[in-house]
C-alpha cells in the first residue's frame, strides 16, 4: 500500500517515518551472504560460487520493465552470453504471495521454459529477506559479484530507463560492460547506477 505524503499545501510526514534508507551492499565490499532454494528445491549459498563471477537479477514477470527485457529475448541473450563465459547468473523472485509477479516453484519452472531463461536458476525469496539484504528496490535490479565475492556493479540493467523494448538496442548494458571490463582486468567504469522499473513487491 502506498502512503501518500502531500508536500504542497499538506503535511509532510514521510521524512520522519523513513529516517534511514535500508542499508544494502556497497561497491568494493563483500556481497551479503545468503542461502535460498531454487524452483527445483535445490539450495544455493553464495559461497558455493566463490571463484566465479555471479550476477543477481531481481525479477517479476508481470512488471512491464521486466517484460521489456524478456519480450524480445534481450535478457535471455545476456544470460546466455554470461553463461558462456562461466558466469553464474541467478534470477531472484522476491514478490510476496498474493502480490504482482509471485509464482510458486511450478509456476517459475513453466515461466522459465516458456520464456527460455538462460540463467542458472531462479531463487525463491517470497519473504523478501535476501531482497532486503541487497536493498533490491526495482525489477529489474542487477548486481555483479566478482570471483572474490566483492560487489563490482549494482543498479540498472542498462542506461535507458524507458519501458520501450525498442530502446534496448541503443542503450549501454551495464552488466555486460562490467563483466567485460572486470574479466579484462580493468576497473569497472560504471560500477553503479540508479535502477529503474517496478518496485519490488515485498510483503506488507
Amino acid at each position, binding site marked *: 500500500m502506498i502512503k501518500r505524503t502531500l508536500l504542497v499545501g499538506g503535511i509532510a510526514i514521510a521524512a520522519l517515518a523513513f529516517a534511514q534508507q535500508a542499508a544494502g551492499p556497497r561497491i568494493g565490499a563483500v556481497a551479503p551472504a545468503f542461502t535460498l532454494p531454487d524452483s527445483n528445491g535445490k539450495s544455493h549459498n553464495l559461497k558455493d560460487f566463490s571463484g566465479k563471477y555471479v550476477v543477481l537479477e531481481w525479477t517479476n514477470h508481470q512488471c512491464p520493465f521486466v517484460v521489456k527485457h524478456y519480450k524480445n529475448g534481450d535478457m535471455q541473450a545476456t544470460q546466455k552470453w554470461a553463461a558462456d563465459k562461466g558466469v553464474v547468473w541467478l534470477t531472484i523472485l522476491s514478490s510476496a504471495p498474493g502480490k504482482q509477479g509471485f509464482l510458486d516453484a511450478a509456476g517459475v519452472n513453466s515461466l522459465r521454459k516458456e520464456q527460455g531463461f538462460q540463467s542458472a536458476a531462479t531463487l525463491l525469496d517470497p519473504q523478501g529477506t535476501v531482497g532486503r539484504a541487497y536493498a533490491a528496490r526495482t525489477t529489474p535490479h542487477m548486481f555483479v559479484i566478482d570471483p572474490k565475492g566483492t560487489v563490482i556493479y549494482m543498479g540498472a540493467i542498462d542506461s535507458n530507463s524507458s519501458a520501450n523494448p525498442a530502446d534496448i538496442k541503443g542503450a549501454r548494458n551495464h552488466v555486460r560492460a562490467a563483466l567485460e571490463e572486470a574479466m579484462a582486468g580493468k576497473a569497472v567504469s560504471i560500477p553503479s547506477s540508479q535502477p*529503474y522499473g517496478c518496485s519490488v513487491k515485498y510483503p506488507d
Partner: protein
Amino acid sequence: MSLIAPLFLAALANPALANVSLRAGVTTYAPNSPFTVAVHVKLQPGWHTYWMNPGDSGMPSRVNWTLPKGWKASELRFPTPEQFSANDFMTYGYHDEAVFLATITPGAEAPATAQIRADVRILVCDESCIPFNGSATINVRKGSEAAENSSNAKFIQEWEQRVPQPLKTPGTIAFAKEALTWTLPAATAPKAKSFFFFGADPGVLNNSKPVERVIEENGFIVLTLNPSDVLYEKPTQLRGILVPRGENGKALGPGYWVSAPVK
C-alpha cells in the same frame, strides 16, 4: 508468452488509463512571441505518475514535441512533486493528475494555423504499474499579435505557482568524504525550520533522506546531503528543488530550483 500478454492487452484495452490534453495560453500567436503550453495528464483517481527523477523505482516522465519548422519548446517545467513512500523506499511524483509546462517560441515558419503536438511517455501506477504513451494536438491561429486565452491562461498561472522558482544565490557545493556539503549565505537563503531537497538527477542523492542535517554558522546555512548508495564518483552538478519547511514539517511553497556545479 501467455503469462505476459494480459498486461499488454490491459494497457491496449484501457485507453482511459490516462488522458492527455494540451492547453495553450493564447488563442492566436505572433511570430517570435513566446507563449506557454500546458500538458495536462489526467489519471484514474488514486493512480500516480512520476517527476523527472522518479526516485527509488518508476520511470521519469517525458514529453516530446512536434512543432512547425524552426519553432522551439523549452525544457519542461515540472511542478514540485509529492513524496510517495512504501517499503522503506521513496518515489517522487503526482497523484490523480500531472501538469507539465513549456514555453513555445514560434520561429521562421509562421503558418496560418500552427499545429502543436505533444507525445507523452509516462508510467502510471497504483499498486502496480503500466507504461502509458499518449498524445494530444492543438492548433493555434496566427494573429497580428498574441491574444490570451483567458481560461487556459488562468489554468497555466495556477500551475506555474506550483513550479519552483530559481534560487538566485545557490552558494557553493563541495564533495568530500562521500558527503555533499552545501553552503548558502544565510541572508539570501530561504527562511525555514528545516529543508527537503528533491534531487533531479537519478543516483546522486539518497531519495528517502536527502538532507542529513542543517546547521547555521557564521552567516551561512550549511546543508549536509546524503549521497545515493549508487553514487560512485563526484557528481559534476547538483540539480533539484530545495523546499523550505516550517512548523510541523509543512512545506512553505513549491521551493526553489537549484542547478549548481559541485566543487
